[in-house]
């Protein structure tokens, strides 16, 4: 396209009250809201409206007006109701409503602390509240194999994320690797597929981290030994946890989209100490008792602590990206 052609498109994009897609000369695309332009550049908010970007005009090959024009929409709404007043309870302009929360459900305190670090918020009474990419997030520790329905009823979220640690069923997975569930399956074989829009957006934003997608098996009890995990392994199954099926079931029943994101704490060939089978919120005292068993027990604990630290760090890195994924998936809806 000629320089004059680009200049004309830039002026139109500046005047446009919707998202545009810039195609760059290198073939890459960028979706954003143009709010200013200069002699040699374009200023825009990215698709999530969280980052300001400046693009040199020389890099732009084309601009497509891909988002809905809010000004035209407003005009059409006004024309439709011309002469008639809105009822008293009309929601806010532009379809803007107070967005619901994102509910992150974890089982134990240690998982909650990882989420809290991602939110940069403290843990208070088994929960942490913060924001990710402008989204209000509530993380709740519901206990191992806990019931997620109460948290759903209390928080009325717009997205539920089952989050925390998992055991590896795929031998290729190491401690700290992330698993984004394509589906969750319970001990009876019932399966729920993860809603596609948030999952695909999440997968895109998690790119660059060590993350695989696959089926998450939800066992009735902790699969602590390599033998137990091998018994659960099936084609496509990559990890095992206790809660994700119950969370997905509760979210589906409530009509709320869900995601399951887990970090591997015990790879396939690693065994967990016996106390890990107990359903507890915290494992400090059992671990201290176990350490008294001898040097081998201490070595097991050191390895477990290292793996848990890696898994926690992985979740901490992944969660801010999920906030971004949420905004993107809603922008595309």
């Amino acid at each position, binding site marked *: 396209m000629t320089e004059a052609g680009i200049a004309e498109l830039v002026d139109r994009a500046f005047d446009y009250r919707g998202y545009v897609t810039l195609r760059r000369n290198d073939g890459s695309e960028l979706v954003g809201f143009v709010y200013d332009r200069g002699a040699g550049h374009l200023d825009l908010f990215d698709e*999530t409206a969280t980052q300001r970007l400046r693009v040199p005009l020389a890099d732009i090959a084309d601009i497509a007006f891909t*988002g809905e024009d809010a000004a035209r929409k407003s005009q059409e*709404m*006004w*024309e439709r109701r011309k002469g008639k*007043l*809105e009822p*008293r309870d009309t929601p806010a*302009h*532009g379809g803007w409503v107070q967005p619901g929360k994102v509910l992150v459900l974890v089982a134990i305190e240690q998982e909650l602390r990882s989420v809290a670090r991602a939110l940069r918020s403290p843990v208070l009474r088994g929960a942490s509240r913060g924001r990710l990419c402008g989204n209000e997030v509530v993380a709740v520790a519901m206990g191992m194999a806990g019931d997620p329905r109460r948290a759903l009823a209390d928080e009325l979220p717009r997205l539920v994320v089952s989050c925390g640690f998992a055991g590896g069923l795929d031998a290729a997975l190491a401690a700290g690797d992330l698993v984004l569930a394509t589906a969750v399956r319970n001990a009876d074989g019932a399966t729920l597929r993860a809603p596609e829009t948030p999952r695909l957006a999440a997968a895109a934003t998690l790119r660059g981290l060590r993350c695989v997608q696959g089926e998450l098996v939800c066992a009735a009890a902790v699969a602590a030994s390599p033998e137990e995990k091998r018994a659960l392994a099936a084609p496509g199954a990559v990890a095992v946890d206790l809660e994700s099926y119950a969370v997905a079931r509760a979210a589906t029943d409530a009509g709320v989209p869900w995601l399951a994101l887990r970090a591997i704490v015990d790879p396939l060939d690693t065994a967990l100490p016996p106390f890990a089978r107990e359903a507890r919120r915290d494992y400090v005292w059992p671990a201290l008792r176990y350490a008294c068993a001898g040097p081998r027990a201490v070595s097991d604990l050191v390895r477990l602590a290292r793996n848990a630290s890696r898994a926690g760090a992985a979740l901490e890195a992944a969660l801010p990206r999920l906030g971004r994924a949420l905004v993107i998936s809603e922008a595309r809806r």
Partner: protein
Amino acid sequence: MGIPAGQMMAVARYLLKQRLAGRERYPLVLMLEPLFRCNLSCTGCGKIQYPVQILRKHLSVEECVSASDECGAPIVSIAGGEPLMHPQIADIARALVGRRRYVYLCTNAILLERKLDEFEPSRYLSFSVHMDGPRSEHDHSVCREGVYDVAVNAIRAALARGFRVTTNSTLFEGTDPERMRGFFDDMMELGVEGMMVSPGYSYDKAPDQEHFLRRERSHRLFARMLGSPKRSWSFNQSPLFLQFLMGKRDFECTPWGNPTYNLFGWQRPCYLLQDGYARTFRELMEETDWSKYGRKSGNPRCQDCMVHCGFEPSAVRAAFESPKAMAGTVASLVTGRL
């Protein structure tokens, strides 16, 4: 008198300081738009038509305070969008009041009554309630039934709790001057401190493009509406600006008088036109080609504009330009005559 003496003195001191410093261009009112989302979609508004991701955004308290510090204007008008939809609006108002800025929090008052607990009355804080006329005219203007009654109840509640309350009315083609006079009586009876009036600006993004007032029609409307003003009426505006609306005076626009800061930066050149954004207030003042704006420039978008954000600063400035103009302003403020 619609403007408290303390506020007038503060503004006078500020203007004097600018003149003594030999400044040619200086701001009078910071138009702060901390968000674009609104719970109404008024027929003549072109401020809120953005994608939902932009509507969800808002300026932080720190950004608002820093914009006010950067600008230095003694008055801050918090507009939008509907400012009361901002989750930290009370903190913003409190921080600005703490800096002794006279804050006009412009609101449609739908949320005012339930948000009053979050604010503390102060001589620096005034709720400027959007009221475009009597009940039917106002509800028609905001395109929603019942809003006039909600606003009147909120005004009563705010006044009862000791808050300063003013009204702001934007007028369009078809306004009945006699009914507006009755509306002024109603507002003063309600107990508001003062009223503000202005013709609407023809935003190109506003849904209704047919009812914006042209300059001559504005003069006729305001002359009939404000002619022989009642002694009971108080306007929270410069009398010279009201005389300008009535066609008794002519001013050129002062587009830098009410600079606007919002999510995108410092808006060029004024509150109404969006020709781009500066990153700093200094960049706005120094790098904007001001000769492209105002009636004399021939800019077609400025020809019918008589909006307060461009002409009120001109009127205030004019009042300080000669002892005669100053005496006329004071006399008008005291007697209420225009």
